[in-house]
């Protein structure tokens, strides 16, 4: 194994102490006291047209500074999804519109001096709605007589299959086909053909979405916001307001979690427009109810799978057809859907006949958006359940079936080049893939051979094991770009400026370690700043498991460039002719075969104070984009205890063995995986977004929307495979999402192994389990 000085070490997070001791660091902490408070009047109806809206009475309340309705804002169709450009999401959203498309959709923006006056004003706005028939069942959306987006202006920047009059946000058909699926299936000895459902899930970052805006001395709009992607946010706000980007600055302070929730613009649109209209600072801090009802959830999906294998368990056909629910607006609709295919089909690359297709429909529910796992977790539930169903038909150990069919090092899949995220992909060969090791090691750790399939513990209780495997990516090849700048300071330390956005992931720490490794200095010589569209370089932002790989390589390149410059200047200072004779170690430049030396600190002082005509600022930069997106892999194994009287399951142990290449910071990588697993367990077992019959979200707080607490965790065991990807910074791949994917199928499979019932829709609630046992 390679030895590194700075990376592959578990140093504490650079901001850890400060945050735990309560530093003012998050958006709301930074808003000025005088900021106008913004709240929204929201729709009580799932689908309605605003006939009239009257704000006169509300405006009379003392302290109210501005009330905006659809009549007062630019009518420019945008998408709130912060992703590549041209955007692969339909432009189907206005800041405000005369249609409201879900309960909680924005009707009016109200700004005033205190929360109280704003609340009072909201009550006085008179709205006359024409209530329309909502589309709440996504399986009935296509071709429904209620058309959710009748407006003429909406469009897509490239062909997505947008067909608004049929409630289709996008579709992807007849493209991802390899071989002859029908024929191959008909020749298979065993075929599994089943339908699976996954539900919406809330990201529930602990910090609610927050934004604050003000005008600076250059009369530019400044927005501090809890965003995962400041550059996309700036672009989208510029577009929505018809403003040149030169006049907008977006600052990302500390972010209290995102998981995809903050990969869309949210209340930034409202603070921006209020501050522009009033000239005053403003802020908008969502309530938990608003976070749940009126931001974004995970896409609900219906997944039809066909798997065909010969009698020896060799997979020959793999077919997936998906219907996805994007809710009221189409943020990330095509891309989440495509990830469902592109992160699953290649994992079983031995199958020769492949097909992937489907549609994404609008409904009158909260918009779906980005959420860790992003399509892959939905498909993982279906595919990894189906694999176990296939194993049962074959009477084969499901672990063996996976080992036989999963992708290996040096291998590829035609899927990589056919489908990427939103369009064609790029061919990939797995230069690092320890999936087989992960499976073998996980099997050992959970003691599979002893415990599979199950064991009766008491008359009521059965213990069993289940498994699922997963792959993700490391950014989007040749679409994601990140950059880093390093600046040498007197006293011999460096500023590292990155556009990458640490939202709790630890990327500020990881990128500092990478830059330090590349320069050849201890990490405490690095001071990182992220991210600010005025002062830090471009970066797509934190999504698609990109930061360690994409931005990490940028930090590495910037570091190597800085090192070269330092050596050049040291050579000059030491009067050395050949740069190669300069050795840089322990923050000191020495000359080969000589006692002469100069410290980094002395060199920096010279460059800024003493070297006369040779004085200069040392700055180095690096940017990175890559045709490669090396997938991290994981094998998940779960042991459960199922109570057949109550249907209740306890997770006794969750074992994860992960191949994410070199772990830049093993502790932080481990926490990423542990956190991902627990979110996956939450989705598998109880987290569910539930609506009333008329489309009102019932699970709009933590009482009704239960997320895992400390008591729900018995044991999570995480190990990393020894792995090195040559394309990654010091061998690293990304690790942000991979943890979340496997629990759904692994737990469903464990339930099957315990009691022989197959549950094909999550969450796997005690009621469903009991019912299934009853109907067995």
């Amino acid at each position, binding site marked *: 194994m390679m030895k590194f000085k700075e990376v592959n070490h578990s140093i504490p997070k650079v901001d850890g*102490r400060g945050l735990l*001791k*309560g530093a003012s660091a998050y958006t709301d902490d930074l808003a000025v006291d005088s900021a106008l408070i913004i709240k929204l009047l929201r729709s009580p109806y799932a689908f309605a047209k605003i006939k009239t809206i009257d704000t006169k009475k509300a405006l009379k309340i003392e302290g109210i500074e501005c009330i905006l309705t659809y009549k007062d804002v630019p009518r420019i169709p945008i998408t709130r999804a912060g992703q590549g450009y041209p955007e692969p999401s339909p432009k189907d959203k206005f800041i405000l519109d005369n249609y409201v498309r879900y309960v909680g959709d924005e009707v009016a923006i109200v700004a005033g001096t205190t929360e109280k006056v704003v609340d009072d004003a909201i009550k006085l706005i008179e709205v006359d709605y024409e209530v329309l028939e909502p589309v709440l069942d996504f399986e009935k959306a296509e071709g429904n007589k209620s058309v959710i987006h009748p407006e003429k202006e909406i469009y897509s920047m490239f062909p997505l299959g947008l067909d608004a009059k049929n409630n289709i946000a996008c579709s992807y058909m007849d493209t991802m086909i390899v071989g002859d699926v029908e024929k191959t299936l008909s020749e298979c000895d065993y075929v599994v053909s089943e339908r699976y459902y996954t539900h919406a899930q809330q990201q529930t970052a602990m910090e609610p979405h927050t934004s604050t805006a003000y005008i600076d001395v250059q009369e530019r709009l400044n927005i501090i916001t809890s965003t995962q992607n400041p550059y996309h946010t700036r672009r989208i706000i510029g577009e929505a307001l018809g403003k040149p980007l030169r006049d907008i600055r977006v600052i990302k302070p500390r972010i209290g*979690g995102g998981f995809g929730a903050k990969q869309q613009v949210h209340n930034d649109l409202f603070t921006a427009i209020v501050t522009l209209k009033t000239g005053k600072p403003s802020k908008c801090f969502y309530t938990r109810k608003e976070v749940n009802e009126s931001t974004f959830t995970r896409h609900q999906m219906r997944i039809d799978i066909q798997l065909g294998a010969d009698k020896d368990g060799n997979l020959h056909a793999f077919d997936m057809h998906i219907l996805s629910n994007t809710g009221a607006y189409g943020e990330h609709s095509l891309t989440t859907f495509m990830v469902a295919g592109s992160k699953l089909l290649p994992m079983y690359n031995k199958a020769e006949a492949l097909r992937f297709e489907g549609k994404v429909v609008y409904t009158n529910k909260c918009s779906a958006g980005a959420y860790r796992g992003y399509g892959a977790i939905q498909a993982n539930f279906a595919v990894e359940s189906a694999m176990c169903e296939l194993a049962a038909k074959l009477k084969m150990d499901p672990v063996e079936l996976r080992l036989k069919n999963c992708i290996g090092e040096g291998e590829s899949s035609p899927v990589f080049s056919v489908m990427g995220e939103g369009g064609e992909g790029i061919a990939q060969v797995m230069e690092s893939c320890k999936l087989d090791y992960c499976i073998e090691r996980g099997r050992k750790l959970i003691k599979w051979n002893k415990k599979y399939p199950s064991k009766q513990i008491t008359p009521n209780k059965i213990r069993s094991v289940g498994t699922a495997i997963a792959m993700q990516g490391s950014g989007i090849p040749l679409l994601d770009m990140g950059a880093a700048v390093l600046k040498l300071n007197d006293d011999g330390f460096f500023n590292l400026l990155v556009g990458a956005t640490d939202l*709790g992931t630890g990327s500020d720490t990881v990128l500092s370690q990478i830059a330090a490794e590349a320069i050849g200095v201890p990490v405490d010589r690095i001071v990182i700043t992220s991210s600010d569209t005025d002062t830090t370089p471009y970066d797509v932002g934190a999504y698609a498991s990109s930061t360690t790989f994409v931005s990490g390589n940028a930090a590495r390149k910037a570091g190597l460039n800085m090192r070269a410059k330092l050596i050049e200047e040291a050579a000059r200072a030491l009067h050395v002719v050949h740069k190669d004779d300069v050795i840089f170690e322990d923050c000191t430049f020495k000359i080969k075969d000589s006692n002469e030396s100069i410290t980094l600190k002395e060199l920096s002082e010279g460059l800024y104070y003493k070297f006369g005509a040779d004085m200069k600022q040392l700055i180095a930069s690096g940017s990175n984009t890559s045709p490669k997106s090396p997938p991290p892999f994981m094998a998940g194994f779960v042991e459960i205890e199922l109570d057949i009287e109550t249907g209740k399951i306890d997770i006794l142990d969750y074992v994860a063995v992960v191949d994410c290449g070199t772990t830049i910071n093993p*502790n932080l990588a481990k926490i990423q995986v542990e956190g991902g697993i627990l979110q996956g367990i939450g989705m598998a077992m109880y987290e569910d977004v539930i609506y009333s019959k008329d489309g009102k979200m019932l699970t709009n707080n*933590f*009482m009704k929307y239960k997320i895992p607490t400390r008591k729900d965790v018995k044991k999570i065991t995480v190990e990393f495979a020894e792995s090195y990807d040559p394309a990654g910074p010091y061998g690293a791949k990304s690790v942000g999402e991979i943890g979340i994917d496997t629990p759904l199928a692994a737990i469903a499979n464990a339930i099957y192994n315990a009691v022989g019932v197959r549950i094909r829709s999550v969450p796997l609630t005690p009621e469903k389990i009991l019912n299934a046992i009853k109907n067995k």
Partner: protein
Amino acid sequence: MKLKLNINNKFYNTNIDGDESLLDILRKIGFKSVKKGCDTGTCGVCSVLIDGKPTLSCQFLAARAKDVKITTVEGLGKQADEIVDLIVSEGADQCGYCGPSLVLTTYAMKKELKNPTVEKINHYLTGNLCRCSGYEGQLRGIKKYMGVK
């Protein structure tokens, strides 16, 4: 109404409305370590100590706070360091939003829990939600602080 608050052993004079929560007032005075995550008493990030007991400040009327001693993480000073260091050395602080309240509650727990066990710790801290960490890393650090193997 006028109110005098004892926060971290210092007195602060402030003006409040009768229905304002202690959370909002603390943030207004400048104690930004106290976070808002739900405002309905269900997440724990607004926890402060009232006379040494962990209390959800979003559910505590500021008006009721006039004769009590309020402690926020700022008030723990050096006493927070041990807990903080144990958590960060596990890499268990992610976004940090749940952090200050967790540190405070852990500090109070150590004073309160006789013969701590993992179960008792998890029970004491159940109300402190964290969406990032999966709890395991935090527990590794907190166990050390509590002297639990």
